[in-house]
Structure formats: structure tokens, C-alpha cells
């Protein structure tokens, strides 16, 4: 390890730089993020001869504070992983002894020669737990080695901001006209804009600003993607004096890297694995069920009541009502209830009982008509199908509820099926049905409504039972298979919860840390 005395010259800050920096703060303030604000790099004074106690003899002996320099072989510069190409990471090993008050300073330059010329920027990193790589699991993962590594996040575009326009309206207009964003006449009109044209001009300028913003983004990407040169140093006095990490020749170690956009967020790997694995299981079971459609499904209370209800309606000569929930055809619950509708309609067709379907969504109406017609055809009575029995009521929840209730009171159906997603109106519907003495079978995936359905209906399919019921009734391989797949998923969750809790409890009781286990589920 060697110390090098550096003489970073202090060039006068050019006005353009000041402007550039101001702009950088205003517009690209976000990009500063964790990286310590760009320091007063250009004002850095040269380091008065300083050396640690254990320093090589070559160093002057008048060191006020011992400085521990990170090992050169541990210093690395690379593109920040899993990001959109806005940062370079410089990392180095945490020295065993740290000088109190010392900060790490990274010099950034666009070319190697710029270091000699003093035309470089600096980024300061205050040592501490937040500066460790382990504090940023999102990008660096959970490797235990990270606890011994400091890092600096360098955003080139905030150090070298894309030069702002800072131009007059005329200049801006001319520039855009040159770029082809304005025709010659439009340019003339804009330059000569009177008050009458003010609104148009405002819209035009807004459009041009939008283009500039887009341009600035592209420029930012180009700035980030360029190669930068970096040096790491330690400063005992907040950045003025520095001791550089040196290579074998005793020269400051210069590394280079570019911030490039990455194509995969490694920190989302667990989400990818879980979702793909689960999808694969479901897909596999759908495939298996196609070949062997006799998968077991447990009995679901309330399903036998379907036949009972239809039978009673036949005896009493009254209709059966099928009430769809308040959801479109893309909702899972609606799809399940459509499947059940097919079965109910078929049974009813066999018994020659009228089924009336109440719809909230126009699309569901159309699909229900198909389903009922199909059911009548399957039952061998296509002539008995009456499309007017599949009603579109209203897309307003309460208009729907009141209209259906009115029909229920007037026609007094013997059985009412309420299947699908329901909101506050569920109580309204169920109360009315209960007051007419109909057998009510309900099923919904909206849990907040279940207490009311459970108390007012004869049978209630709770949540997933609705989906299971549709699979059970239809015996459709795709439903059966995916149900089995979901069960496998649930089994996995159950086992995972129990096993991990047990393992963690034992480990915690013995004082063993098993963070990696919980980290498996951590999402960023």
C-alpha cells in the first residue's frame, strides 16, 4: 500500500458549469438517489502530507490522523446490476480500522487525461452501515460478503447533466424548426404570434417542451452509457485532502465502467420463479385432467340442494331464478357461475321448469343466452328455449337489485341461485328472496358479503367453493385440473408456513440466524 500525494488543481468554476449543476439539481434531482450529493470536487485541496501509523516509510511522517486505505484488489467498478442504466457502482472492502470522521471520495472523469487536468467530479460516501452493500439488498442480494463491502452509486447523468436548453423562445423555435418539428409557415406564425394566437402558441410551446423532455431522456441515456474513469480515495477532512488507493506502481488506481441498461431485475427472481412454477403446476394438471378426467373432488354442501331446488320448482310449477353477480364476464366468479348456470339450465330443461336469468352486464347476458340455449339443446328440448328468459336488467347495482327483487316478489320463484360477485346489494336480494320463502343457494367470492348471505340463504358457497362447485358440476377437465393445481399450490403454502415457522422457531431459540430463509420471500 502506498500513498500518493495528489495535487488536484482547482479550476475556476465556469458559469456554464454552475448553470449545469443547478439544472442537474432541479431536473435530475431524482437521479441523485442514494449516491451522496456530488461534492465540492473542484474545490478539493491537495492533501497535506499524511500517513497512518502503520504507513510505509516513504510517506511523510507528519500525519495528523492515521488513515486506513482499502485494499486495492478489493476496489471494483462495474455497471449497477438490475437497473435501467443510470448508475455505476464502485465497491471496496471495508478496512479493519476506520478513521473516525474520514469519508471516501470517488473521482469520476470522462477521460483518463481529465484526472491530470483536474477536470473531474467527485462523489463522497460517508462510511456507516447504510453505505455497506448489505444495506442495499435490492441490487446486491443477500450474500454475507456484502457486509464487508462499501459501495458508491455514481450517476453519470447527474454529474454530467444533459446541457439544458436555456434559450429564448425564438432560439427554441428555430432549433425545432431546423429539426423538422415545425414547418416554415408555423415558424413564421409562432414568431409573429399576437395575443389572438396566444393559446395556440402555448400549446405549441408545450408540445416543443415535451419533445425536449424526450430528447433530454435520450441524451441522459447516452451520457450514462459512456465509459467513465474512476479513482477511490480516503479523506480525513470531508473531502479536501485525499489519500488515493494506488496500484502497484504507486499511481492512483484508475478503474473504468459504463452504466448500461440491464435486461433482468435479479431482485425479482423469486417472483419469477414462484409464478412460473405455479403456472407450470396448474398447466400440468390441466393437461393431466384432459387425459384422465376423473379427478376426485370432495362433496360440497349445497350442491345437492341444486337438484332439490329445481325439483321443488317443478312440483310447485314455479320458475327458478338465476341471479348473476355484479361483475363482467372477465371475472372469475362470473365464469364459474356461468358454468353452474349451464348445469342448472340443463336440469331445469329436463324437468320442464322455467329458468330466468338476471343479468347486470350486457356481455354476460349474451353469454348466458348461449349457455342456456346450449343446455336446452343438450337436454333434447331446443324448442323450449326462450331467449326472453335471459334478461338484461341494469348496470346500476341498486336498480338491478330493486328490479330483481320486484320480479321475485311478483313471480315468487321456488328457488333462487345467487352466484357471482356481489356488493352491498346482496343483502337486499337475499332478504327479499328469504321473505318469499324460496330456497336460496348463494355463492360469492366477495367475503365482506358472506356474513349476510350465510345468515339469509339456505346454502352458501364460500369463496373458492364457488369455483370448486363449477368444476364439480361441469366435470370440465380444464376446471378440474386447475383446481387440483391450486390445491397443490395451497398444500405448498401450508407446508411452507408450518415448516419454516418450525425451523425458524427452533433456530431462534438456539440463537441461529436464518435470514436467508425469510429472504427467499422478500420482494423488492
Amino acid at each position, binding site marked *: 500500500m502506498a500513498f500518493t500525494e495528489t495535487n488536484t488543481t482547482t479550476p475556476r468554476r465556469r458559469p456554464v458549469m454552475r448553470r449545469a449543476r443547478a439544472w442537474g439539481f432541479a431536473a435530475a434531482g431524482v437521479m441523485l438517489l442514494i449516491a451522496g450529493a456530488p461534492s465540492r470536487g473542484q474545490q478539493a485541496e491537495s492533501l497535506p502530507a499524511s500517513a497512518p501509523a502503520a504507513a510505509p516509510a516513504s510517506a511523510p511522517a507528519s500525519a495528523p490522523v492515521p488513515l486506513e486505505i482499502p485494499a486495492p484488489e478489493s476496489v471494483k467498478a462495474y455497471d449497477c446490476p438490475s437497473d435501467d442504466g443510470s448508475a455505476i457502482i464502485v465497491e471496496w472492502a471495508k478496512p479493519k480500522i476506520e478513521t473516525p470522521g474520514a469519508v471516501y471520495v470517488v473521482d469520476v472523469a470522462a477521460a483518463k487525461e481529465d484526472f491530470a487536468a483536474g477536470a473531474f467530479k467527485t462523489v463522497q460516501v460517508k462510511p456507516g452501515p447504510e453505505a455497506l452493500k448489505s444495506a442495499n439488498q435490492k441490487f446486491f442480494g443477500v450474500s454475507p460478503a456484502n457486509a464487508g463491502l462499501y459501495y458508491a452509486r455514481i450517476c453519470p447523468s447527474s454529474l454530467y447533466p444533459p446541457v439544458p436548453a436555456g434559450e429564448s423562445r425564438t432560439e427554441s423555435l428555430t432549433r425545432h424548426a431546423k429539426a423538422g418539428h415545425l414547418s416554415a409557415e*408555423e415558424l413564421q406564425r409562432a414568431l409573429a404570434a399576437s395575443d389572438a394566437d396566444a393559446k395556440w402558441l402555448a*400549446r405549441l410551446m408545450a408540445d416543443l417542451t415535451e419533445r425536449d423532455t424526450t430528447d433530454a431522456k435520450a441524451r441522459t441515456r447516452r451520457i450514462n452509457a459512456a465509459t467513465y474513469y474512476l479513482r477511490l480515495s480516503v479523506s480525513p477532512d470531508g473531502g479536501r485532502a485525499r489519500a488515493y488507493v494506488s496500484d502497484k506502481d504507486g499511481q492512483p488506481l484508475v478503474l473504468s465502467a459504463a452504466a448500461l441498461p440491464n435486461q433482468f431485475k435479479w431482485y425479482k427472481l423469486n417472483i419469477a420463479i414462484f409464478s412460473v412454477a405455479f403456472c407450470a403446476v396448474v398447466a400440468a394438471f390441466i393437461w393431466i385432467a384432459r387425459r384422465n378426467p376423473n379427478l376426485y373432488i370432495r362433496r360440497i354442501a349445497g350442491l345437492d340442494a341444486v337438484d332439490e331446488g329445481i325439483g321443488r320448482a317443478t312440483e310447485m310449477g314455479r320458475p327458478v331464478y338465476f341471479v348473476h353477480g355484479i361483475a363482467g364476464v372477465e371475472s372469475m366468479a362470473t365464469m364459474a357461475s356461468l358454468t353452474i348456470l349451464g348445469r342448472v339450465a340443463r336440469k331445469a330443461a329436463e324437468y320442464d321448469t322455467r329458468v330466468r336469468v338476471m343479468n347486470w352486464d350486457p356481455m354476460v347476458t349474451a353469454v348466458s343466452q348461449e349457455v342456456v340455449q346450449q343446455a336446452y339443446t343438450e337436454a333434447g328440448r331446443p324448442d323450449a328455449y326462450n331467449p326472453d328468459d335471459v334478461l338484461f336488467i341494469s348496470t346500476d347495482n341498486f336498480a338491478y337489485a330493486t328490479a330483481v327483487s320486484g320480479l321475485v316478489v311478483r313471480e315468487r320463484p321456488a328457488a333462487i341461485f345467487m352466484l357471482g360477485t356481489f356488493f352491498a346489494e346482496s343483502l337486499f336480494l337475499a332478504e327479499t328472496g328469504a321473505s318469499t320463502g324460496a330456497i336460496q343457494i348463494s355463492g360469492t367470492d366477495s367475503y365482506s358479503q358472506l356474513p349476510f348471505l350465510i345468515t339469509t340463504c339456505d346454502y352458501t358457497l364460500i369463496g373458492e367453493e364457488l369455483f370448486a362447485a363449477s368444476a364439480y358440476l361441469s366435470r370440465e377437465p380444464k376446471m378440474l385440473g386447475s383446481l387440483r393445481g391450486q390445491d397443490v399450490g395451497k398444500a405448498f403454502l401450508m407446508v411452507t408456513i408450518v415448516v419454516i415457522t418450525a425451523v425458524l422457531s427452533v433456530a431462534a431459540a438456539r440463537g441461529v440466524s436464518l435470514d436467508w430463509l425469510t429472504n427467499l420471500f422478500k420482494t423488492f
Partner: protein
Amino acid sequence: MEPQAQTTESPMRRTVEAAVMIALGTAFVVASILCQKDSLFGKNANDRIEAVGIIIAAALTLIMYSFLYRDNPLFKIAENVYIGAQLGYGAINTWRLALRPQIYNPLALAPSNQALWDALVFRSVPILLGVLLLTRLSRKHGWLSRYSYSMMVGWGAGMTILVMTDTNILQQLQAAAKPIQAGVTADAGWWANAGAVTGALTVLVGTVCVLFYFFFSIPHGPVGQRVSKTGIWFLMLSFGASFGYTAMARISLVIGRMRFLLFEWLKIPQ
């Protein structure tokens, strides 16, 4: 919707009800005029309009509540006015806040030819797809709407897989997988620590049992029966909690309406 729609009514009762209705209506008008007289006969035109508005709103509120007694023509009128007004308001809002800024402004108010061209390039496809969506209303050409629809459904499906895995599975799993003694602290008392452990165990047992209750593809043996029964118990406790909270919510809404009637319409001093 009330069951008595079936029961026959005597003419006598009808007369009485009509008389009551007229009396109530008169009372409403008198009360409105008395309570709102300051603004109703005031100098400020705006106040007069507001007062009339409040009276209409109060009338609608009472008419809507009259449904609790029984369905009646006034309620039906109010209901249909409400549906229509909501529809009209929705249409205006969709125009004002969606169609105008996203379609009309960029195309009709494009400041330059280049801007118009860019807007066309970016927006023509979604506009076309939006128009195709409308073919859903036609039986014959309804299939065209599938193009726009399938894109949205596909996007929704892809995103659902992702966000569900993240939000509802992995994060819940991470929270569920904690040592049982995680809540135990040295400075808390024995009872508090015992409570924390019991609580953690309850959550663990409950989660597993409820998950088991929703197991469909394996037969539930005697043990399984017991586990799923425990699951039902947990479900019922949570449904009870939902019931309690729902009761609270619905009462609050009545409170809101009563506040309107008492303080804005009748102007009772608070």
C-alpha cells in the same frame, strides 16, 4: 319488493294512505319553506338556488327512504331520475376528463403538423380499438370487439399473475413465516409474552386450517374433518368481524343522511 305486493288492499286503506301522503307532502313543503326561508326569500340569487336545491335533495332523500315502507310511484320516479342523472354525469365526465384530453385535444388542437402527425401515430390504433369495442353491441359484428378486448384481458392476466405472486403470496408468506417467539421481548411481562406466542400460534393454526378447508381434491378423513371444521370456525370469526364492521359502515351512512336532513334542510342548530 315487499311481500305485501301480493296481498289485496282494501279501498279504505288506500284512501287513508293517500290522505297520509298528501298530509306528509304538505308538511314537507311547509317545513321546507319555514326552515329555508332566510335563503329562499333572501336577496342573493345564488342562495335561492341553493335553497331550492337543498329542498329537492331533501325530497329525494325522503322519497328514497319511503321505499322502506313500501315501493311507490314516487320512489320509482326518483330511482329512474337517479339512474339517468348518473348516466348523464358519467358521460359528461368521460368526455371532459378522458376523451377530451386524450383524443380531442391532441388531434383537434394539435399546434403543428408534426404534432398532429405524432398524435395520429400514437393514438390512431387505440382509437380504432376503442371503436371496435363498440361493435360488442352488435350481434353480427360483435366478434370485432374481441381484438380490443383480448389485448386488455391479456395484459390484465399477465399482470395479475405477477402482482398476486408478489403482494398476496410471497409477502404474506414472508410475514407468516416468522418464529413463534418473534413477539417476545425481554421487557414485556410474562403475560404479554405468553399472549404474543399464543397470538402467533393462533395465526399459524388458523391460516393452515382455513387453507385446508378450501382443499377440494383430496378426501377429508377424520383428522381432515376436524381441521377443516377448525377452519370454518376461523372463517366464522372473521365473517362475524366483517358483519360488525359492515353494521358500523351502514349506520354511518344513515348518520350522514340524517345530518343532511337535520342540519342542512331543517337547519336545526348543532
